[in-house]
């Protein structure tokens, strides 16, 4: 009975129970087994690298340069709408610019939009969700009211109204997307905080004298972080697709910005040309499709491995 505490052998107990793996390493383990997800991850990685390289001006720098062609008579004219060839693997647009370079540049634009939007909506959602879930009561009522109201207003009209306040352009569209898009995540975060605030470890932290902010962000937040990760990966898809729609409506990318939305909006008339100019539409759609597919697969895999309960 009077064993010296320091002499106790800790491994003795360990051997009796199988230690559970941590959520993250477990998730990673499961993710690694999902080859498709790993593949998607690398695809996304490639997109990100391309985007950053384009943003840094190291790749596809000729996206804004007109090219010319010389006909038999020696007349020089714009190389507009030239179909895919060795020189321009994805053809050229109306001004003779290389579609491949423009599509690559589009990834940089999409990345910017998605990151800005995600940063804003995650910040708002986490903050408000934490407050609503943790404090409850009056604060919860107000925040719930706010997001219920916001969710009722048709998203696109809300975006339009916001872009009228903020002004047009991609950055503002991203900000507006962020300001509108936080409701879903906020709901999830609120539910998580409600669940976690009754857990013993929170009570323990309270008993240790931790203040509410410390508990909310140092103790509970890491436990809800996987939800943020999943929402982030699926949010990317929303941002990329949102940019297309808003650009089409005339609020997004400016005339000279080679965003995917811009390319797809212009494709509408080009497709009906005779002979059909299909390459800008196809390139932008495929570029977008691949990255959205990768994000969807990865997001799915993340959801399965991080939070099997959150399947929706």
């Amino acid at each position: 009975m009077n064993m010296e505490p320091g002499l106790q052998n800790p491994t003795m107990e360990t051997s009796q129970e199988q230690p559970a793996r941590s959520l993250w390493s477990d998730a990673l383990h499961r993710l690694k087994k999902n080859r498709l997800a790993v593949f998607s991850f690398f695809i996304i990685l490639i997109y990100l690298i391309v985007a950053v390289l384009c943003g840094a001006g190291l790749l596809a720098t000729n996206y804004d340069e007109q090219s010319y062609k010389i006909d038999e008579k020696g007349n020089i004219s714009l190389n507009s709408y030239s179909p895919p060839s060795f020189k321009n693997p994805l053809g050229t647009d109306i001004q003779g610019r290389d579609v491949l370079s423009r599509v690559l540049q589009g990834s940089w634009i999409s990345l910017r939009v998605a990151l800005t939007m995600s940063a804003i909506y995650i910040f708002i959602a986490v903050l408000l969700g934490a407050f609503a879930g943790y404090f409850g009561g009056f604060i919860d009522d107000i925040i719930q009211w706010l997001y219920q109201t916001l969710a009722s207003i048709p998203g696109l009209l809300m975006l339009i109204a916001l872009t009228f306040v903020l002004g047009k352009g991609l950055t503002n569209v991203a900000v507006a997307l962020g300001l509108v898009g936080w409701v879903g995540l906020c709901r999830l975060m609120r539910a998580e905080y409600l669940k976690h605030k009754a857990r013993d470890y929170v009570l323990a932290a309270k008993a240790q004298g931790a203040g509410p902010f410390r508990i909310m962000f140092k103790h509970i937040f890491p436990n809800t972080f996987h939800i943020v990760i999943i929402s982030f990966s699926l949010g990317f898809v929303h941002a990329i697709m949102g940019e297309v729609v808003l650009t089409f409506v005339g609020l997004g990318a400016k005339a000279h910005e080679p965003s995917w939305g811009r390319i797809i909006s212009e494709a509408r008339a080009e497709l009906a040309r005779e002979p059909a100019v299909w390459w800008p539409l196809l390139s932008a759609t495929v570029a977008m499709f691949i990255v959205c597919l990768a994000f969807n697969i990865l997001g799915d895999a993340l959801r399965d491995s991080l939070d099997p309960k959150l399947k929706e």
Partner: protein
Amino acid sequence: MNFLEEKDALCKKEEPLLEVVNLKTYFPIKSGVFRRTVGYLKAVDDVSFTIAAGETLGLVGESGCGKSTTARSILRLVEPTDGKIFFKGTDVRALKESQLRSLRRHMQIIFQDPYSSLNPRMTVASIVGEGLRIHEKLPWREIRERIAFLLDEVGLSPHHINRYPHEFSGGQRQRIGIARALALNPSLLICDEPVSALDVSIRAQIINLLTDLKERHNFAYLFISHDLSVVEHIADRVAVMYLGKIVEIASSTELYNHPSHPYTVSLLDAIPLPDPKRRRNVTPLKGQVPTLAHLPSGCRFHPRCERKRPICETHQPPLTEVSPSHSVLCHSPIS
């Protein structure tokens, strides 16, 4: 009791470390269009007791009788509805949030479930060092040393300092929980069923650890358990709870030898005897435990009581002292 006072200089004369007077914790039940409160769930209903410095009080009762709520109410992790709590003479309920936080370092709690009570996303160091970081603005190196020392004290290797809870077994986790509670060097430790979630083989180790610690640091314990046999070892005095009320409170030896409340008797009867050949004439408790939302009238135990009299159904029994420091809440205590 006198020798306890001498030991703890912090404690004022004649004043217990913790005094709980008429503590009530109700949870409202809401219903209808406007979500009006239509009733209360009386989890803790008029509970009073004291704990002296260095003393161990065992609090025993079936699950759902309000033991944990009592513990949490004392720390104000759950907001009590009424009553007074004095810790070292300060009225805990009158404190503001910030004052409460600094008071809490003197009262610590160990939870039942070693899994949910440790944050899975924090390392052992940050779990154990949390209190130190909040209350003592020490450099990180010193905190680390203290954490290593604490881990050593609860029987864990200081090498574990950067590991995460999932890398430990249940018993080890409970040790981490204990280390966390010890970190601030409290004078009262509330142990909320600290061993009931553990394997029987590990229970003894943890209880021994707690006893050792008490001897070394002279803590007072509020030791909560649903099992009288666990408390027998460690407690100086024992209180038995039934449906939110303390039905019997007495020193450990007195209670085990002369139980006065029929409920205590049946709890004692339920303890399995180490010798399988010996048999007690057991009269098992009949009936279901009523829910806290629909309490029976009169004595709360009467629907299950063998010694029921008509008065039991209508009148609440008074707290009667059957012998010095042995009180019972019964119309006809067993003498």
